[in-house]
């Protein structure tokens, strides 16, 4: 088990190097730092001096991969690749283009993100499983049929519609909650309740339809027939046998997204003015702050790999038949 975990962690290293190379190529080879400076400085006709000044200020005035001017190890370390890309491995994100420390920003912004993402995740899972189980219980009846129709319709509606419509109806028309904003502590609840509700509702369509398929697949198995044959009621079969077994694919399927909850929700946070990592990312994209985008790409991939590892481990936890070698 421990050996397996260690091997998986080691396996993550080449993947992170690959991610790093992709971002490096995108950010520094396709575009030279000169282009970046020109874009940041805005004006079409900036002087070369202004560009050089900007590059020096932000540390982009070094060669890309190899610095012949430096001495000793500096030949490899005093380069953009080392300073801007490799340092991410030490979780040293440096400063954003406007000079603020990215790591500090992430530490303060992850809490609002989690305060939104965790309730959406947990409530959403509970609602979807309940909905799917109800449909599976009434399978092949009109209730099931219209449930599926509802699911397909709900998953055909753009998330943007749920957000804009919900915000308009609940916050603007009915004045039940503030339109947007955020406060720390318990006051956060009144700002979060609407985004959480919208997040859950927008996920019902695809989520419960998927779980319903899983439940129905499970209900075709032999042990279910055995349970029915020994005279158990349909409810007991469903809750005691099917639910337990169907939770294996459901749980292992959602584990991969748990670490990614840290990243927050881009749309929800930016619409509701929640100062989390999602709105941080979207602001960085819109302001073309590449230092922040690079840092978020790196964190995202670390969290994804963590999610893959957790998925494998969760198999052994919920399914005793699985042994990790």
């Amino acid at each position, binding site marked *: 088990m421990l050996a397996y975990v260690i091997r998986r962690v080691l396996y993550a290293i*080449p*993947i992170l190097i*690959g*991610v790093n190379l*992709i*971002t490096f190529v*995108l*950010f520094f080879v*396709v*575009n030279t730092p000169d*282009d*970046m400076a020109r*874009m940041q400085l805005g004006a079409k006709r900036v002087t070369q001096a202004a560009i050089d000044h900007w590059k020096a200020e932000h540390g982009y005035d070094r060669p890309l991969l190899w610095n012949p001017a430096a001495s000793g190890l500096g030949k490899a370390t005093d380069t953009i690749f080392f300073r801007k890309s490799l340092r991410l491995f030490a979780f040293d994100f440096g400063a954003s283009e406007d000079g603020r420390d990215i790591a500090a920003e992430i530490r303060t912004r992850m809490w609002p993100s989690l305060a939104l993402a965790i309730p959406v995740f947990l409530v959403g899972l509970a609602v979807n499983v309940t909905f799917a189980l109800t449909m599976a219980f009434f*399978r*092949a009846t009109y209730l*099931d*049929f219209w449930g*599926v*129709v509802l699911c*397909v*319709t709900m*998953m*055909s*509606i*753009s*998330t*943007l*519609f749920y957000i*804009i419509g919900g*915000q*308009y109806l609940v916050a*603007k028309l009915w004045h039940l909650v503030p339109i947007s904003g955020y406060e720390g502590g318990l006051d956060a609840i009144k700002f979060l309740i609407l985004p959480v509700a919208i997040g859950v509702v927008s996920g019902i369509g695809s989520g419960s339809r998927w779980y319903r*398929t899983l439940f*129905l*697949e499970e*209900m*075709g198995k032999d042990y279910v027939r055995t349970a029915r044959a020994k005279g158990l009621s349909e409810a007991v079969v469903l809750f005691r046998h099917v639910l337990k077994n169907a939770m294996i694919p459901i749980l292992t399927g959602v584990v991969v997204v748990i670490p*990614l909850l840290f*990243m927050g929700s*881009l*749309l929800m946070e930016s619409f509701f003015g929640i100062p989390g990592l999602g709105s941080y*990312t*979207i602001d960085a*994209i*819109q302001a*073309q702050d*590449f230092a922040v*985008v690079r840092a*978020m*790409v790196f964190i*995202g*991939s670390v969290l*994804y*790999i963590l999610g*893959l590892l957790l998925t494998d481990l969760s198999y052994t936890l919920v399914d005793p038949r699985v042994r990790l070698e």
Partner: protein
Amino acid sequence: MSMGFLPVLLPTDVLLWLLVAALAGYFAYCRRRPHLAAPWVRVLKSRAAIVSLVLLAGYGVVGLADSLHFRRALPPAGPGDATAYSPEVLSVLDLALAHLRHSTEKTYSAPLATRLFVREEIEMPDGRVLRDYPRLRFGGAQLASEADRGADVARRTLAGLAGAALLWGLLGFALRPLRRRFPEVPWGPGYVTLGAMLALAGPAFALSLGYHVLGTDKVGQDVLYLSLKSIRTSLVIGTLTTLVMLPLGAMLGVAAGYFKGWVDDLIQYLYTTLNSIPAVLLIAAFILMMQVVIERHAEWFPTAAQRADVRLLLLCAILGVTSWTGLARLLRGEALKLGELEYVQAAHGFGVSHLRILTRHMLPNVAHIIIISLVLDFSGLVLAEAVLSYVGVGVDPATTSFGTMINAARLEMAREPIVWWSLASAFGFLLVLVLAANLFADAVRDGFDPRVRIGLAAARRAAKEAAA
């Protein structure tokens, strides 16, 4: 001699029409091979498939009419001059909707309104200045008195309905031979859907000759026109993305499962790495970088439309790069299973080359997975466009799309009274497109997935009902 117009081949036009040709070729190929035609016949027997196909065909006609572009010749400046062409790139759809394209107002106006949505200072003939809602330049300009609007709208609606009914009857008559040839296809629901579509389109067209049926947006453009123009963008993103996704996903996925060993490791490494980057960020990084490249090489693109089009194509490409991994993983699993089967082992024994085994024995046996996942992905891609355009890394701001429409209309929700029509139109058109695509995808899955056919009766029935 000037032709009067200069055809413009935008890259996405060319690819879109090639795709249409390829699809036609594929179906012609299928027709003569019963084993390939069988799943499609199963699909076409489903009512949901027919209804959604009719809806998708409606969108397709608009989108394809919007994919034939040209530039008009300008009137010659003097005798003997070489013909110059207008920098404005138009499409056949623009010709059909010329009255809408030219009928811009000053700013917002509600659907079927005769007056502007905001007050303005109007100078009266006697010199007094009045603050009132001014009459529209186009909407209801034909009315002698605004009191006649109700009667005029009713008259136009009836005329539109009559035209639609006539067209419906004609189409029904023209389809009769087909109907007799393929009696097993549920023509009825399809015909009803067609009727419903015509009953909406007919009056909409008749009214659009005198009014803004869906109102106007902030800069006074007709919302109906914008919505119809957005259809092409959605279709391009939903279909052209597959041109990148399909070869990458199919080749790499099957190769990984077939060759195993280091090839498998390498391909798995590739897609795990790509997957681990959050898709939005990868797309954002790519689009932002490409934007710089495009700006640096402005001379590559003679017109703004061509530049916007290249950006659309690049968006499709990067969406393809981020979405091939799912297909590849599915195919890898399937190819691992297939590779162990006797007929593949036998082919090895006979000394058949790898390439031939891959193309003759593996690919045809995973084709159903490819078709299902391509159709399933369409709706997700169309929805993704709206989100990406909101984030600012979608289509070019000059390209009309549902995403840019929603993005522009988002702030209007804060106005008092609320400007709801552009958002409602964009979401409405988007919903019908995605819903039709989802229903069609379900029908295709049921038709192609062997598990659905031999699986348990309950799941099968439920799945069928879901599609119906």
